[in-house]
């Protein structure tokens, strides 16, 4: 538990340092891209849904898997779509 807390705090600090330097121009892609990263719950969903043995765990896990995958795939794709539009003056 304590280890988890330490990891959480350190990651928050790294996140703040990295993200506070992102320019306003990219704030929307930052939101959709980081949102896709929060879809990492997909990993948790795979574990709970995949290690069957209990039907309830399976149902809840499958629902979580579908939600999380939508989040991950949609989030990364739409961010990519936005970012390819940002061009410098030729």
């Amino acid at each position, binding site marked *: 538990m304590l280890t988890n807390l330490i*990891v*959480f*705090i350190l*990651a*928050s600090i*790294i*996140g*703040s340092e*990295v993200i506070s330097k*992102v*320019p*306003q*121009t*990219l*704030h*929307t*892609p*930052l*939101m*959709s*891209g*980081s949102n*896709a*990263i*929060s*879809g*990492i*719950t*997909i*990993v*948790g*969903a795979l*574990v*709970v*849904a995949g*290690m069957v*043995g*209990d039907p*309830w*765990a399976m149902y*809840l*896990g499958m629902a979580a898997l*579908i*939600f*999380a*995958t*939508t*989040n*991950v*795939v*949609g989030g*990364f794709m*739409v*961010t*990519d*779509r*936005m*970012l390819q539009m*940002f061009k410098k003056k*030729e």
Partner: protein
Amino acid sequence: MKQNIIDIAYLVSAIMFIYGLKRLQSPATARKGNQLAGVGMFVAVAATLFVQQILTPAQMLIGVVVGGGFGAILAKRVEMTGMPELVAAFNGFGGAASALVAGAEIARFLAPNAADLMGGAVMGGIDAITISLSILIGMVTFTGSFVAFGKLSGRISGNPVIFPGLRVITILFMLGAIASMVYMETGAGDFSVAGFVSDPVVQAALAIAVIGAVLGILLVIPIGGADMPVVVALLNSYSGLAAAATGFVLDSTALIVSGALVGASGLILTNIMCEAMNRSLFNVLIGGFGGDSDGAGPAGAVSAEGLTVNSTSADDVAILLSYASKVIFVPGYGMAVAQAQHAVRELAEELAKKDVEVKFAVHPVAGRMPGHMNVLLAEANVPYDQLFEMDEINGEFETTDVAVVIGANDVVNPAARHDKASPIFGMPILNVDHAATSIVLKRSMRPGYAGIDNELFYNTNNQMLFGDAKDSITNVINEVKAL
């Protein structure tokens, strides 16, 4: 051994996420950064699938294909103006996934073969706390995001919904959540084998899920349409915290690290948006500020003080712009609503041909989410090196011949600087009134998002070009070409 491989894979993906986000610091490297983060996600998923004992790979594949297909369709179809709604919806999905995983974890603890599933571990007091937090944050994010989605997409009214007792009810629900957590805490470790649904832990979990869902709605409905960008950023942060909480439940470093990154990102953006509006987060969350832009004020009204405005025409504007040496465009969400961004870019190009220096000034709250206006202009092929943030460009208005305001209102209202009675007093604004001449393109004299009158319109060096922004700009382009 297996666990080690997975942990290393998760470490690799966490590093990819961090460097992916780092590359978002410049538009030149941003796309690669996002792709790197995507690869990081793939590594995490692949490691989980191949190394963990996933007993039903076929079913997992179906889940991934269904969810992925749905996400892909949404991502491909969305209009750039609809980006805030989409991000809100994705936030909601992330929150729901976190709550569901925590729920599934309870089911595994309670399963008849739990000793097998959980490696002999029993649900303890700490598990009860992390699981209930994960469900609570996840559900608040889920319903809160969908209320925000509804408000942003116009499916529900953007006006703040406030009724007597709202705050009291909200606080009661929060207390209820704490009580349910305590109830789950007492039930942990001692499961009645009698039945799943009659178990106190399950009852507490369901209660927390319902309370979280209601809280999400109660927390977002009082917030007005003008404040939605803050809310979307805050919910983005929540979706990260929900993932991190699930990481505590599953003891998964991957989830904790990624969740913390997103949580930090959302909080920073929330803070930037609050500063740009000169409002505290608490003040935003209390709600009641600003409604739909189309709800306020009659069209064509003259201000209360009987002041008049100078109206101009497309050919006058064309002459003014063509013979200027420096022009700054100030786009607002109204430009996107009128779909005028392509015309504006064309006008900027025509002026550049006449050796006019052209820049775009983007206020942090232009558009309906952080950075939204920049995306809309990028879609219209405006090069990103012509876009300037408020602090970069505010000193330049003094030396600017013409500032053209298109569909922006409150962010150029000088009242924010000196009128203590104005609701937007103290909000940082673009110094459009410092330019030699300002031109405001506007459909009518209707007030802006915050529903207040704009002093700029009555300045002697300000001219109004009334009409649909796209039509007006197109007329100006034709006149400029004819010169």
